[in-house]
């Protein structure tokens, strides 16, 4: 009922842990994996990066602003950490990669022979020369995906930024590059200012917005992408309950990623999956039958 297939990746349910959330240590990934269809580890680059100084996260009403700054121990170290995961779970592990160029991207998959798929972070909005710096450029997006596809047989997903004039153009570039799916979307460019100190709150000043507040925005991105793409779409942005998931599926996503909802509960995914299961038991449908249904007759 809840099973979905993305490229050649089979998931027992469509709810995936989003990158950057509880994804630095094998122990927390293992815990979240218990109920998730798949898990995405925190983005990793070739070399270690310290990330920004605290404060890097600000929780506010219905949303979270963050600029962690792609803190990462580097591919070699992180590979050792992720390897420990396979003693305790057999859920698909998607390794999220960041890099400055297509050459650097293509050097990364080899470090993670155990990965079920790769997700290219073309969308982090707060790291210089990385993430979104590449993800706003159609040619760069296409080149990076192509480069990674050439070095791995595993499915390659492109995580897109919503901070562009027309996300469908980037989606099409990803498809042309050979992406097996797109993930839409990463955080929206944001800032928060403290009225007492009269200064930006985050140490990096600028950050990205996630959480419930962005759900309708992300949903629109999925809607638009579904109208132009043939490859599957994984929806992401502000999902916190099963109804949100159904909305994203009806808009055209085959699966979803959940992140900020973990602020409410470590068991966020467990609740969502149970809700989805109850809903589909009631309607007697398979989740795959619902993909894009809201587009019919529009």
């Amino acid at each position: 009922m809840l099973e979905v297939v993305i490229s050649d990746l089979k998931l027992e349910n469509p709810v995936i842990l989003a990158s950057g959330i509880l994804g630095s240590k094998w122990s927390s990934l293992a815990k979240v994996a218990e109920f998730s269809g798949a898990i995405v580890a925190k983005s990793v680059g070739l070399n270690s990066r310290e990330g920004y100084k605290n404060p890097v996260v600000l929780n506010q009403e219905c949303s979270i602003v963050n600029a962690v700054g792609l803190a990462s121990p580097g591919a070699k170290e992180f590979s050792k950490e992720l390897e420990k995961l396979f003693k305790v779970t057999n859920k698909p592990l998607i390794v999220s990669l960041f890099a400055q160029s297509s050459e650097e991207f293509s050097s990364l998959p080899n470090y993670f022979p155990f990965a079920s798929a790769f997700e290219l972070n073309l969308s982090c909005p707060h790291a210089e020369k990385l993430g979104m710096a590449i993800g706003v450029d159609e040619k760069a997006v296409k080149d990076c995906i192509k480069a990674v596809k050439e070095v791995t047989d595993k499915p390659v997903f492109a995580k897109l930024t919503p901070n562009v004039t027309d996300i469908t153009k980037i989606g099409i570039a990803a498809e042309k590059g050979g992406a097996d799916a797109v993930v839409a979307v990463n955080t929206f460019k944001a800032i928060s200012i403290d009225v007492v100190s009269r200064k930006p709150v985050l140490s990096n000043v600028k950050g990205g917005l996630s959480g419930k507040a962005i759900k309708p925005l992300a949903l629109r991105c999925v809607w638009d992408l579904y109208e132009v793409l043939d490859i599957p779409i994984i929806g992401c942005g502000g999902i916190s309950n099963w109804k949100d998931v159904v909305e994203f599926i009806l808009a055209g996503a085959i699966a979803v990623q959940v992140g900020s909802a973990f602020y409410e509960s470590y068991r966020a995914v467990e609740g969502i999956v149970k809700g989805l299961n109850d809903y589909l038991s009631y309607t007697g449908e398979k989740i795959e039958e619902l993909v894009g249904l809201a587009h019919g007759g529009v």
Partner: protein
Amino acid sequence: MYCVKVAEVNKMCRDVVEIVFDRDLRGYPGQFVMLNVFGYEEIPLSLSSPKSLTVKGVGKTTKALLNSKKGDVFGVRGPFGRPFSLPSVDEKVYLVAGGIGIAPLNYLYQTLKDEFEVIAIHGIRCKDEIMYDYPEIATDDGSAGFKGNAVELFLRIADFEEKMRVYSCGPKPMLLNLYKAMKKRNLLDCLEISLENYMKCGIGICGSCVTECGKRVCKDGPVFKGIDIIF
């Protein structure tokens, strides 16, 4: 995030201050706040009373806090995390603190002392590090109180025949010793420990403070029951 103003700063010993705010932070004993020290970093600190934090100068930010004064303004997120649970009426309460680990236990002491029999133990290196006047003191060098560490003193004075509840916070080796001692006596369900770890978000999402058993210190802790910890 909201801002709080400093009402007074009390010097507790050479490199420890108690920063008292002009308002109650509405937390429970064992909870912590993410304190944004403007111009420095945002750091997690345990409440040492409803309206205070007790800080030891260790890093750049905590050292800057030693010089804070009345009227200073700090940003606060929280209080966050799981607090200490309350003991049952028939339990004798022991607080075992090591060094600056006394901070959260002081709040607990102030909360419990009128209604429970509370024995507080504070392990420090020497008499110059005494911060509060109520605990039994254990010093490494014997310059005040019991010569030895807090766990040794606890084992000496604890009455294991009676129903007890033990709360602890301090350096990891001390916590490990206490954990082993309680485990040996099959009393892990009477133990609650407040853990420390490097934190970024403070709200359970970034994963920086996750322990080897998959628990988030900021959200599933910082207070853990003895039976839930694997050291």
